[in-house]
């Protein structure tokens, strides 16, 4: 390690508010007391705002974060005096939490190209001498020697485009202004950065004010202007202060004022403070504001280049645009143009904000894929959440969803997707963001910020806001989306200025990319992200596809009212015991307790509740003779069909279920191994449904034993198809026909239904989902010596539950990630191995994940005598549907209405895997319930789903009490050596005290003063 020569302390507004000035003082003090020859410089923004206060030790570039005054002595003694890194304080690379003290080792730093920000974090913004020492004002000197036309030519050739957002070629703008007639011309700088989440300009003004001043002098020289105005919002006091100091210094040193550098140029600058009206970022409004009037735009033409400030030709550029100018003149247009893309040259600064690990400031070459900015530099989305969208360009911009993460960030590509480059605000949103709510927020912002001059912006955005608000409150009506689109389009076309023309963008862009989310709010009265208060009673309940009253049953368990809790659960989901074992608990992902420590173990409490069930608890059933006489057939006795039957039975129907296999239960009985779901558990809940008057006939396979037409002929008024997706997808590699290759569906069904399945000695399972893990663990239990799971992506991306993967490894399963099968290698006419290719991650694909691509390593063979593929499931719709004209999607699944489950044939309903593709038990239950409600509504002409009404939970709750401090309880597992050779249930029961403590962790988000008593 080299000897530390200087220490940069970030004095950007973010770090200052985190306490960097005190750290700086302490550093200076510590260094002075120890009489060390190290310079401490308070610089502009270093970039990684998330770690503020940050301190950079040069020349090696050792970065310390979240430094407190108390840490200073240690840093000085260890790093400065002894050349050691203090790992505890070192910058941590996002996601890995590994200390990465050297900036050069972290993509957040090493993938940046700093041109505009070249001096930020390097020079002392309060010292013109420091600026000059770093090459400052050389560009001005050079420009004065070149002459105005050559300067403009250089800017034009550089390809620099306006960094305020619109991307107009800067050189061309300068040329227009130079050619404009007029004896007085003005040079203006737009520092009215108003987008929520954007702080590029502020950081530049704070961190490198002289580069902006220098660029404006050059611009004045180029266009023939002698007066400039820096328009900076009053909310940026630090920027205004530092700019003011810099202007004073520049004037004192002869860079501003008459006869600059003795070359006859006269130019001076003044700061004008704006009062923070977003519209003043619009050029004509900005100029009106400088003139001292209400900041409002005016029609163009005349364009500012001809008639701008006080009617004189005026050149207006954004702060960042100016920041590039000295670098372009110093290093040449060709050098600048070597960065970026064909149409968008150079670099762009982005302010990373929102749900991203490395919030802060980055500068990257234009054209870098969005995914790289978010994942490589930004470190991805924190807290295990899934990336949902990035909002670029603030309220005037648009969002880019997961499927376009590979978009190169340049002006044209972004606008094709309905977003804009904007000034560089980049707000990352994760799965917990409701896009309708987000659109409402931005619309509210522009509505507030509208100057009120033209009706489309003044009234139109208000009307849009009213519609969006209504949707968020659950009062949306059919046609609202179309109304928003139409109104948005009209506002875009008719508004006076850019603010109005772009005001509908957040709505139009979210409708474009997240239409289904709007539809969920309007049609299903559901906020998928669990955000909109009018639609979300509690986030867990909202996240549950079946809308189970989670806080309710958790609270009842806490009161030891197990029977009541079970009845409450079965109001919406009959399979309390099944789901207690197999549910993938989306409820826990949304649990607000995770903001305190960890989510409540909802599935754990449910498991306890189910374990404690003595006599089967059924909720209300309303007998109805008329309904009982109505004939409804249900094909498939899986969770979807059973749930449909269950809810129909609660309304007094006596539906008939036809099941193809010999045992009812569907996928849970056929493919979920008994160590996860003991057979008896499922049988109990199946029997419960049968006892409600549901008749199940087994060994009745649709397409073999009967057809849908037969059912009609037998007098069934409505039919529900819950046939699942029972066929394994083929791998599509050579050698797949070799004996010893099987698919997981067949393998698991074989074992679970018929009791035995052939298992090899060395088994390879291909796939990364739950079926793959179930297969691997079943194979282990059936005596396989080795089981290897091949998955072509990374472990993070495996769809199987993390805990299942982990337990499979404990049982001896080997997981090989980034490995793709190329060919099944035969040996003696049977499977001898799988030729594999190591993969590496490439571009982002439509799923928002990085697409695996072949790595450079040569293929290799994994020897084995059995290959089981578990890469997907489908169904044979042709055989099932026969000649009936039912609409089927491109993916082979049956198209059914999201709200009613009705197919294109009006008496035929469908739900579960057969229409949604392979999904969960609880999704299937929800689909069955929806179809039951719709079938009843079709047969009776009215909706009778009495269980859908929210019932206030009458368990006492005092919101003022401190939340319990108990940590999340873990599931108890059977020891590995006691489970590997058998199918005994792995997860073990909780004791009462654990369950009660866990239920006490619930924050009771369902609590409303009117519905709960203290």
């Amino acid at each position, binding site marked *: 390690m080299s000897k530390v020569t200087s220490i940069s302390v970030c004095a950007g507004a973010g770090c200052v508010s985190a306490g960097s000035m005190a750290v700086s003082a302490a550093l200076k003090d510590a260094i002075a007391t120890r009489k060390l020859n190290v310079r401490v410089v308070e610089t502009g923004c270093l970039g990684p705002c998330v770690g503020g206060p940050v301190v950079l030790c040069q020349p090696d570039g050792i970065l310390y974060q979240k430094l407190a005054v108390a840490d200073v002595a240690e840093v000085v003694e260890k790093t400065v005096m002894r050349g050691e890194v203090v790992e505890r304080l070192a910058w941590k690379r996002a996601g890995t939490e590994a200390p990465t003290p050297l900036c050069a080792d972290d993509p957040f730093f090493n993938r940046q190209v700093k041109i505009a920000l070249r001096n930020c974090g390097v020079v002392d913004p309060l010292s013109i001498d420091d600026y000059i020492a770093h090459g400052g004002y050389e560009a001005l000197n050079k420009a004065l020697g070149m002459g105005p036309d050559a300067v403009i030519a250089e800017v034009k050739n550089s390809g620099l485009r306006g960094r305020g957002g619109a991307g107009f070629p800067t050189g061309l703008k300068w040329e227009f202004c130079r050619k404009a007639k007029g004896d007085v011309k003005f040079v203006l700088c737009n520092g009215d950065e108003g987008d929520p989440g954007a702080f590029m300009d502020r950081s530049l003004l704070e961190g490198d004010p002289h580069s902006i001043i220098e660029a404006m002098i050059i611009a004045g020289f180029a266009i023939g202007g002698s007066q400039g105005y820096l328009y900076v919002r009053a909310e940026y006091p630090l920027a205004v202060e530092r700019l003011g100091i810099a202007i004073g210094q520049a004037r004192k040193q002869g860079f501003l004022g008459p006869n600059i550098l003795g070359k006859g140029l006269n130019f001076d600058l003044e700061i004008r403070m704006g009062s923070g009206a977003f519209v003043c970022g619009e050029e004509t409004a900005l100029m009106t504001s400088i003139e001292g009037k209400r900041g409002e735009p005016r029609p163009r033409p005349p364009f500012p280049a001809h008639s701008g400030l006080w009617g004189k030709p005026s050149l207006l550029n954004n702060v960042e645009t100016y920041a590039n100018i000295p670098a372009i003149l110093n290093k040449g247009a060709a050098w600048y143009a070597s960065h970026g893309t064909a149409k968008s040259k150079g670099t762009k600064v982005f302010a990373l904000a929102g749900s991203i690990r490395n919030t802060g400031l980055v500068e990257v070459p234009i054209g870098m894929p969005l995914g790289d900015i978010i994942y490589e530099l930004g470190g991805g989305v924190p807290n295990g959440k899934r990336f949902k969208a990035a909002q670029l360009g603030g309220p005037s911009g648009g969002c880019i969803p997961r499927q376009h993460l590979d978009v190169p960030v340049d002006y044209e590509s972004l606008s094709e997707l309905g977003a804009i480059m904007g000034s560089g605000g980049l707000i990352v949103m994760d799965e917990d963001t409701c896009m309708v709510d987000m659109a409402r927020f931005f619309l509210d912002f522009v509505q507030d910020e509208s100057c009120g001059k033209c009706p489309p912006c003044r009234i139109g955005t*208000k009307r849009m806001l009213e519609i969006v608000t209504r949707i968020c409150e659950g009062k949306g009506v059919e046609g609202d989306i179309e109304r928003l689109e139409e109104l948005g389009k009209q506002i875009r076309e008719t508004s006076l200025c850019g603010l109005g023309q772009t005001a509908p963008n957040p709505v139009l862009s979210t409708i474009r990319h997240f239409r289904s989310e709007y539809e969920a709010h309007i049609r299903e009265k559901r906020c998928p992200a669990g955000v909109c208060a009018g639609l979300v009673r509690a986030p867990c309940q909202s996240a549950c596809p079946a809308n189970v009253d989670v806080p309710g049953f958790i609270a009842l368990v806490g009161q030891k009212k197990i029977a009541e809790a079970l009845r409450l659960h079965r109001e919406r989901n009959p399979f309390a015991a099944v789901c207690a074992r197999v549910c993938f608990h989306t409820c826990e992902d949304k649990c607000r307790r995770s903001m305190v420590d960890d989510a409540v173990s909802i599935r754990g409490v449910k498991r306890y509740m189910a374990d404690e069930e003595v006599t089967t608890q059924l909720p209300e059933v309303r007998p109805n003779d008329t309904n009982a006489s109505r004939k409804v057939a249900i094909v498939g006795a899986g969770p979807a069909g059973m749930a449909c039957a269950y809810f129909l039975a609660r309304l007094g129907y006596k539906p008939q279920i036809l099941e193809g296999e010999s045992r009812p239960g569907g996928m849970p009985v056929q493919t979920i191994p008994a160590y996860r779901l003991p057979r008896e558990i499922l049988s109990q809940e199946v029997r419960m449904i049968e006892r409600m008057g549901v008749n199940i006939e087994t060994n009745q396979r649709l397409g073999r034993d009967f057809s849908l037409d037969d059912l009609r002929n037998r007098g069934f008024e409505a039919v529900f198809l819950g046939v699942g997706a029972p066929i394994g997808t083929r791998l599509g590699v050579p050698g797949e026909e070799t004996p010893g290759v099987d698919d997981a569906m067949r393998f698991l069904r074989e074992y679970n239904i018929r009791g035995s399945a052939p298992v090899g000695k060395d088994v390879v399972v291909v796939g990364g989902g739950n079926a793959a893990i179930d297969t691997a663990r079943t194979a282990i239990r059936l005596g396989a010596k080795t089981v290897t799971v091949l998955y072509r992506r990374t472990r993070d991306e495996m769809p199987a539950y993390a805990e299942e993967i982990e337990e499979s490894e404990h049982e001896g399963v080997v997981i090989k990630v980034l490995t793709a099968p190329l060919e099944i290698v035969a040996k003696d006419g049977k499977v001898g191995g799988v030729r594999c290719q190591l993969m590496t991650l490439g571009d982002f694909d439509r799923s928002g994940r990085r697409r695996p691509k072949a790595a450079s390593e040569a293929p290799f063979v994994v020897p084995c005598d059995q290959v089981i593929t578990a890469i997907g499931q489908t169904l044979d719709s042709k055989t099932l549907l026969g000649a009936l004209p039912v609409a089927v999607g491109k993916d082979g699944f049956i198209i059914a209405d999201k709200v009613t489950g009705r197919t294109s044939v009006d008496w035929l309903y469908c739900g579960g895997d057969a229409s949604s593709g392979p999904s969960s038990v609880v999704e299937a239950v929800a689909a069955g319930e929806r179809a039951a409600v719709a079938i009843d509504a079709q047969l009776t002409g009215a909706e009778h789903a009495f269980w859908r009404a929210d019932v206030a939970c009458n368990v006492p709750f005092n919101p003022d009490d401190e939340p319990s401090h108990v940590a999340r309880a873990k599931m108890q597992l059977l020891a590995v050596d006691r489970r590997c050779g058998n199918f005994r249930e792995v997860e073990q029961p909780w004791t009462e005290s654990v369950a009660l403590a866990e239920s006490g962790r619930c924050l009771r988000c369902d609590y409303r003063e009117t519905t709960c008593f203290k």
Partner: protein
Amino acid sequence: MPKLTIDSTSVEVPEGTSILDAARKAGIRIPSLCHLKGVQTIGACRVCLVEVEGARTLAASCAMPVADGMTVRTTTAKVRQARKTVVELLLSDHGGDCQTCVRSGDCELQSVARDLGITQVRYEGDRHCRLVDTSTPALDRDSSKCIMCRRCITVCNEVQATRALWAQDRGFQSVAAPAFGKSLAEVACVQCGQCAAVCPTAAITEKDHITPVWAALADPTKHVIVQTAPAIRAGLGECFGLPGGTLVTGKMVAALHRIGFNGVFDTNVTADLTILEEGTELLMRLKKALVDKQPVALPQYTSCCPGWIKFAEYYHPDTLPNLSTAKSPQQMFGALAKTYYAAKIGKKPEDLYVVSVMPCTAKKFEAQRPEMNSSGVQDVDAVLTTRELGRMITQAGIDFLALPDEQMDQPLGISSGAADIFANTGGVMEAALRTVWCVVTGTPFPFEKMHVAPIAGLEGVKEVSFTIPTAVPDWKFLEGVTVKVAVAHGLANADRLIRKIKAGEASYHFIEVMACPGGCIGGGGQPRFTDNEVREARMQAIFAEDEGKQMRMSHESPIVAQLYSEFLGKPLGEKSHHLLHTHYAARPVL
């Protein structure tokens, strides 16, 4: 000259012409709600949108200059839909009680909506907050009807320099109103009513005096008389579909008789009287300056315009000594009606109810100034604008166009042509000059048709000077003196002129100021819509009325002579001083 195609028509117009004007030339009428030719071109209302080939968005035709080779489309589906949406949005935020609105049938928003074929408003929702301001005697504001076209703001600030109305708040709540949530009465509003005259809807209207007038007419204890200002006769016809500048003096008198006024008189009578009082005052000031060599406030400013008076009280209090102390003709009439005339018919002042019909809203304010009660009670009880009189005639069921011509009643019904031209900018000055010239020189007024051309017309500030060749003995000191006079109309013009004078860049003896552009014929109470074409036509009508009279000079009026001999004594005499003169006081600007 750029040549362009609008729809299918080829048009050639001068450089700088807007698409809107070029279209008009091509016979295409593009609707607009905010545009005010020559006054406001801000492209705010978005109703005049057109498609310009090659442009990214639709263009506001009022603000977009033509370019050679331009192709413009004004009736495409896109344009019609855009205009419709914009107007629907305006309607969705409009306190729409069309049936009972005072502007129904005379509302630009209503007619634009009708012209665009809007039969339903697809976007409903909140309305911006409603503020009703009835604080001033002249103007009422109802912000719920404001469509933020900003005509009032521009007129108030740029034409009148009054600075009472501004755009307030932002976004949906933005509204044209005085600053800081003040009422109009609390700010420096001169009540000229130009805002009401340009308002496309009923967001700003004159204060209703129709109701009290009908009540007085129905009151058997009241003797109700009416005076009509000279500008009314050139404007009233427009309320009944006649072209601007149609003289309807006789029909107006007939209508007033039919409405039931006990006496129909002419404000012209006291206009003539004003000339004598104000002219004498000027001569006295000149004498004091030139003969007595005493300090005296010169130039003298006219004082017939209440908007101007209030403006001076707010913004130029140091010029108040320069203002003629003569009351305006309306107030002279009121004072004489409740003294001289009341005595003549044997009534007490309080039993007389004096109504005036004025082209002006500020007259409503002037009538209730506390000092305007020389008769012991308020001299003028109610002031109807021309528009209000039009509405009263309609309410009375009178078929105005079918009326015969009738004569004003006596004794206050005969006047000179000089009184008529009070209605025009430059008219008071010309009337004064006619009399002063004759009195001073004893020779006929030497201008063609007796008009002083340099101070007629719509130029904002006009001036003329002439040397007095000979003078009668009383005024001998004026012989050889070059008299310099100026005329300003539109308060912003007046403001500029006064600043110039204060800066020593100009000097005059006598200055006429009229608050409204064009003078009273363009007053804030005149029928809508008043543009320069209409102003010009009304001015010509007034000149025609003047020229049609035998008696062209105020001092020739027998009524004036009778008033002095029977009642007043002499100009600037004690009785005149009491009844016909007033005083002014500075007013704080917020």
